[in-house]
């Protein structure tokens, strides 16, 4: 399942002498991709930075338990997604109101520096942030990261049919939002 470069990274990570070198190679290869996945889910840079670091620190610690049946980046996506879900759920507990949390995310999105002509992208992000958690995760992984359903199954631990249904509903809701606002 793993590519040649992934095999090389794994062999470096599994040897105690070359573990640090392997970590640098792994992080340089996947950090930007994973960072943007996290950023789309948690919105702020500070949260995204914390979760990115947690993701790679966990990967460094648990590399021995990685069996190599999936790709490294899928495994990293899974760790990152779980960390994002944990953060969002903790925030939900604190906020007690999901709508309030969504509004805060949207407000933060509005505060970020954006170039001219990016209003449509902000609107699109607003639409994504208004989706339920599962639909947002599936839509982000499928639309932005272009991951196949089989890999999303591994990341979110759900069936292909459930993913397809969630993606369909998310797509419809975003379409409606973009047309109405």
């Amino acid at each position, binding site marked *: 399942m793993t590519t040649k470069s992934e095999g090389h990274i794994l062999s470096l990570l599994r040897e105690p002498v070359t573990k640090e070198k392997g970590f640098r190679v792994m992080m340089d290869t996947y950090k*930007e991709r994973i960072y943007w996945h996290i950023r789309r889910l948690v919105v702020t*840079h500070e949260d995204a*930075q914390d979760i990115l670091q947690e993701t790679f620190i966990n990967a460094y610690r648990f590399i021995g338990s990685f069996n190599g049946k999936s790709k490294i980046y899928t495994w990293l996506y899974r760790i990152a997604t779980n960390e994002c879900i944990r953060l969002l759920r903790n925030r939900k507990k604190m906020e007690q109101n999901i709508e309030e949390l969504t509004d805060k995310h949207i407000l933060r999105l509005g505060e970020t520096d954006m170039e001219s002509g990016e209003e449509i992208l902000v609107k699109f992000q607003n639409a994504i942030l208004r989706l339920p958690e599962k639909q947002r995760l599936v839509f982000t992984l499928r639309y932005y990261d272009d991951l196949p359903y089989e890999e999303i199954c591994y990341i979110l631990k759900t069936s292909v049919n459930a993913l397809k249904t969630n993606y369909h509903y998310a797509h419809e809701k975003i379409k409606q939002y973009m047309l109405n606002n």
Partner: protein
Amino acid sequence: MPYSVPDGFFDRITEKTLDEAILREKIRRKHILIWRTMAIAASLTALIAIGYLLINFLPPGKTEQTAQNMTSGLQEEVKNEEFREVINSMSVKNDYDSTITESKTVNGGMDEEEINDVLNSLTNEELMELAAILKSDMFIEETDNILQ
């Protein structure tokens, strides 16, 4: 994307994360070492404490009483054994006495005349055979000794 990232963020994040990962690994190993040492120390302390309690806090009379109980039990067993032996020997003696009585009864049941008649009716060859049997049979001789 409508999001922005601070300048040089991706250049610094790798080393920063690696340093943090190494630091956490060191802390984790130290914690594991401390926990193992504490677990061993706690187990040893518990063992010593249990030993100390058993030696010093058990009532001394209890040990003597237990020993006495054990001794009386043994004595009873010995008595029972002796009783059984006496009973057995008595039954053997009774068997022996009854055997003697039976033999006496057999002998006493025949008169001398009757014996003489039987001997007279026997041929010489038959008498010779009887004599041979008498010589070879050890039990006949033993019975004679008992009767005497």
